[in-house]
């Protein structure tokens, strides 16, 4: 088992390497000179002397390989440079904003799982019933509705018309309701359909029929036997859709003025704050990679057959 984990960890190395390469490339494919971008963002008039001085400070006059190795070393120490705008270390600013984004993301995952598991199971058990039809509708709408628009629709109904919930900002639980709903719908759409499909497949399996013939009540057949196996694709999809969740937080944080990392990223784009952009892109890739690894490990834990397959191969 440790060998399998080790093998999976090793497979990450080249991908992280590519991620650093892309992150590094971002600054060099840019048509703007980072020195100039820095001075503009800091509201300093760019004279030729100042530009030259900044270029040297950023190490832009050194050979490209040396620059890359330097970047690599700094990324390893979580040093993403200083924000052009505030001149504070980027990592410090990011650390401040991460909890807000994490709170939103975790709430959404939790909420969407809590909604989709019962819906998916009911849709699979009572196929063609009203729950099944409802989930089909949700899945079409969830996949096709622009998230920012959904956010504003919710604001319109719940904050403007009914005056029940606050429009924006972070604070108590009432601030969390609308952003979580907005972020969850697309996930619910996805998970419900996925669970319905895998659940219907499992219910046809022999072990389920065997459990039924043993006289186990249908409820425990569905919830104890079939659901455990049917959850697997859902877990895989949760890991693979981390990206969707992340981009979702960018949009939703913008709509609800949520003081998180995504909003900081968008601000950085407007200010051409290159170190912040690099940091976000790199961390997003890392999150994606780590989530995929975690999913693999959970699957290995839940389905020992994967491990056995790996052993016969090697």
């Amino acid at each position, binding site marked *: 088992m440790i060998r399998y984990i080790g093998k999976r960890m090793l497979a990450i190395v080249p*991908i992280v390497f*590519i991620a650093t390469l892309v992150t590094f490339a971002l600054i060099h494919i840019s048509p703007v000179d980072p020195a100039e971008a820095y001075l503009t963002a800091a509201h300093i008039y760019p004279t030729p002397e100042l530009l030259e001085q900044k270029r040297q400070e950023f190490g832009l006059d050194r050979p490209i390989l040396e620059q890359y190795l330097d970047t690599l070393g700094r990324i390893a120490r979580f040093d993403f440079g200083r924000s052009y705008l505030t001149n504070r270390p980027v990592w410090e600013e990011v650390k401040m904003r991460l909890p807000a984004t994490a709170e939103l993301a975790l709430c959404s995952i939790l909420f969407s799982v809590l909604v989709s598991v019962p819906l998916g199971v009911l849709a699979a058990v009572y196929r063609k019933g009203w729950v099944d039809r409802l989930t089909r509708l949700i899945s079409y709408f969830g996949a096709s509705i622009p998230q920012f*628009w959904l956010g504003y629709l919710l604001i319109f109904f719940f904050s403007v018309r009914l005056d029940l919930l606050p429009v924006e900002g972070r604070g108590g639980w009432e601030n969390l309701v609308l952003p979580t709903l907005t972020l969850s719908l697309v996930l619910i759409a996805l998970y419900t359909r996925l669970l319905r499909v895998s659940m219907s497949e499992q219910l046809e399996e022999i072990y389920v029929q065997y459990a039924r013939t043993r006289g186990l009540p249908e409820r425990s057949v569905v919830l104890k036997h079939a659901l455990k196996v049917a959850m697997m694709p859902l877990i895989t999809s949760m890991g693979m859709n981390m990206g969707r969740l*992340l981009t979702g937080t960018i949009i939703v944080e*913008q709509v609800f003025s949520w003081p998180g990392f995504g909003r900081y*990223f968008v601000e950085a784009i407007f200010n051409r704050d290159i170190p912040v952009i690099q940091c976000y*892109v790199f961390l*997003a890739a890392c999150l994606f990679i780590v989530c995929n690894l975690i999913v693999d490990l959970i699957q290995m834990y839940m389905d020992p057959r994967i491990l056995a397959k790996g052993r016969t191969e090697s």
Partner: protein
Amino acid sequence: MSKSRQRVFKGQPTIVICSIVILLFFIIAALAPWIAPHDPVKVDLTQKLDGPSAEHWLGTDQLGRDNLSRLIYGARVSLGFAVMIFVSSLILGTLIGALSGYMGGWLDNLIMRVCEGIMAFPNLVLVLGIVGIFGPGLTQILLALMMVQWVYYARICRNMVVSLKGRPFIAAARVSGSSSWQIIRRHIIPNVQRPIVVMATLEMGWAIMDISALSFLGLGIQPPNAEWGAMIHEGTSHIRSHPELMIYPGILILIVVITFNVVGEALSERYGVVKR
């Protein structure tokens, strides 16, 4: 009618209806200058935020511009750019994928590693990163989306080519003296059409959503031009008094994306293509 025939046409009504809706939107987008009742960027402050009237069927916005005309012109931007992204990433991806699968060896390896690298980033994050570096604007968005999207076509195409390469008819073509390029064009590309049609329909929906999201963030089309995402953004400042300003364009995005998704799903079921 025979039974097998019935099965082929079973999914047809949805596809037909949705295709008609899509076609309608394309016609509206193409004919925008002729069917739009007003100039979409003409400001008339004396008529700002008017309700529906005989002259302005859907009322006017905060600058007195005709809503209906702006929605019609918005279709042009959304659909036009989605098509452009689709065509450019399709051509780029298919060519690179075919090349990669056909040549094999280190080139194939390199190209597939690049694809994996790009896919390691969540789509919109990389697009935003590129736009952030190159600066806002529609051309930049077009380039960024293309740079991210070609990967999926390249992978489909490459895998198809690899599985086709060993088949006898390719060997026969090679023995009879066809060049590599001729083989790719005549024998391989026709075979990868189906999965690509499915991908394309689904991608049109994603592209329209991405463009509107980027415009909403203020990174896409710049004012005063009309685009649905940007219109929603402008409308949100009047959410209390005139919610319809943000509701109309959203409904249009929803309808267009849903129809593309429904067609894509139906086609993928029919062709038995596994989605990405």
